[in-house]
């Protein structure tokens, strides 16, 4: 029996007619393009376009109200000789490094505590997140009052405890000001570390701790040989993420000190704002902002490479 007899006169069912749009979307290349479009538009409009504008601005001498001319790298050369810029760079690195170290240490400590079983665990975990949830500007204002030389609740407490005899000018003393803004940054950033690391800790099989305990590892050894290596991938991602955010931090310092006193807390972002918007030297402000770019690029590349390595394994 021939096949056509077995299956009937018309072996193939004709496909129904389709519209142009349907046919285009059936094609993977078009579908991919269509699906990518929203992301491309959003990223292009709000990231790429401002970035390119910023680059173009930084190689001109534009001021507020005065369209500029191309001046090549003059703005950057000027920055090189600008001592305030040097201070801002130094401050930014100190601010980022010190704050990150403390955020990691305190966040990890909190995460380890929260990973234990105790009454009111759920409540405590939610409570820990508070500094992270409150809008930074509001909480920073609260800190500003706490640091106020006259009304400072910190000073009052220390005074009552008999630890100090005079007033401490937290934000007015150039040496203390940077420490103060770092304290606030740490306070705000610890919850992110704690919760992320806690999530990481919870992916670690608790049996491993028990196995290590039976194998003869003391609590510290269990942490060092088992918990820490297994938590490292999460830690790396969290640290790199935090470094990027801290490095480009603006609002916290802007609210507390505005970069003062005498530029003691001036960071990349606050200085760029001060020069670009405050003084109206738009092109120089753009140049300062762009100067952050190489460093952030390195951090991002390291992060991507690391994530890829973790994914491969």
């Amino acid at each position, binding site marked *: 029996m021939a096949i056509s007899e077995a299956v009937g006169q018309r072996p193939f069912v004709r496909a129904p007619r389709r519209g142009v749009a349907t046919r285009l979307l059936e094609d993977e290349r078009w579908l991919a393009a269509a699906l990518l479009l929203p992301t491309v538009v959003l990223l292009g409009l709000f990231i790429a376009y401002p970035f390119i504008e910023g680059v173009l601005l930084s190689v001109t001498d534009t001021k507020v109200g005065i369209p500029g001319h191309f001046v090549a790298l003059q703005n950057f050369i000027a920055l090189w000789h600008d001592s305030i810029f040097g201070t801002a760079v130094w401050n930014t690195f100190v601010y980022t490094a010190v704050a990150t170290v403390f955020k990691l240490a305190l966040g990890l400590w909190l995460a380890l505590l929260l990973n234990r079983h105790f009454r009111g665990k759920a409540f405590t975990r939610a409570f820990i997140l508070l500094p992270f949830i409150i809008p930074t500007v509001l909480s920073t204002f609260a800190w500003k009052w706490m640091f106020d030389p006259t009304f400072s609740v910190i000073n009052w407490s220390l005074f009552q405890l008999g630890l100090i005899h005079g007033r401490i000018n937290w934000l007015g003393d150039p040496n203390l000001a940077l420490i103060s803004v770092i304290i606030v940054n740490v306070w705000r950033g610890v919850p992110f570390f704690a919760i992320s690391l806690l999530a990481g800790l919870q992916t670690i099989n608790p*049996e*491993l701790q*028990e*196995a*290590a305990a*039976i194998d*003869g590892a003391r609590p510290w*050894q269990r942490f060092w*040989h088992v918990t820490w290596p297994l938590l490292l991938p999460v830690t790396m991602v969290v640290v790199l993420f935090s470094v990027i955010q801290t490095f480009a931090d603006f609002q916290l310092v802007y609210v507390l000190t505005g970069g003062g006193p005498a530029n003691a807390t001036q960071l990349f972002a606050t200085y760029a704002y001060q020069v670009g918007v405050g003084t109206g030297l738009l092109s120089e402000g753009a140049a300062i902002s762009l100067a952050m770019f190489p460093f952030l690029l390195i951090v991002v590349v390291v992060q991507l490479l690391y994530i890829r390595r973790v994914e491969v394994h």
Partner: protein
Amino acid sequence: MARVLIRNLNKMYDDFHAVKDVNLEIRDKEFLVLVGPSGCGKTTTLRMVAGLETITSGQVLIGDTVVNDLAPMDRDIAMVFQNYALYPHMSVYDNMAFGLKMRKVERAEIRKRVQDAADILGIRDYLARKPRQLSGGQRQRVALGRAIVRHPQVFLFDEPLSNLDAKLRVQMRVELKIFFNFLKTTEIYFTHDQVEAMTLGDRVVVMRGGLVQQVGEPLELYNAPVNRFVAGFIGSPAMNFAPVRVSNGKDGLRADNPGFGIDVPAEIRPRLQPYAGRDVIMGIRPEDLQLANGSYPPGLCFDAMVEVVEKLGPEILLDLQVGEQTMVAAVEPNVRAKRGDKLRFALRPERLHFFDTGSEAAI
């Protein structure tokens, strides 16, 4: 190498009494299996012996030392976990060496012990690999290896085979048995699988609801269960149970069910006599139900209808309807039976079990 003594061991979680007055002696070099359904308290008992769980009351002795307040590492035990609990970031070698490193054993000695263990377990070629690159059976061997390199006094096994597929489980069971014979250490093995318990244990402890039900050699549990639970838990397919009424008939004691009635065999009569006029539970194992021919005394025979035929190969399981009662009989593979057949079965009188309806204790 030491005996383990468990005295009046109790564990309370708030209001929940998980382990109740457990008393056990695990002799030196004995292989003791604790078996019971999930939630019977065996895992809690294991964790208390290991030192991973605090003891509410009672004592655990390893050798002559009360270890209640000793940390796990100071109890000189090794444990094989259900999910192996291998350190995922360490190589097989480092996994096995970890316990020795923590105990500051010399490098050369560590190397020797790990390699010896790897040879015994057949994992020498995998020493450089990470656990995730191994199959389930290989991981199991690494977990064993990690335990044996330490030369501990006592081995604890927490359902070590339950994560393996059925075929591998049978294979590993045999390997474990050979391996244990070779080890000659005190071993406590926890499982919910009664077949594992019967095949591996020198003695078996059956637990239920935090209580020890029975302790004995495998065949002792099988042939003389102390209560209905042990009778039903040990053995596969499980023992058949049927309520029967005991009464004094004209030829002696009888046990009757709506579907069948039998003359109580002479050897059981004295024990069952006090129950005359009352209901008890009769138990009979599937292999103790046999197709009746003329030579069986009619007082031990009854009629049944075949509901389901399960041809297993070495035997056939017949699901039977006996009055309102369902029973399973294991018969010879050459028996030709099909659904709806009416067959006559005989009970092996010496294999009958009777249990009190209230306490469920064996009569």
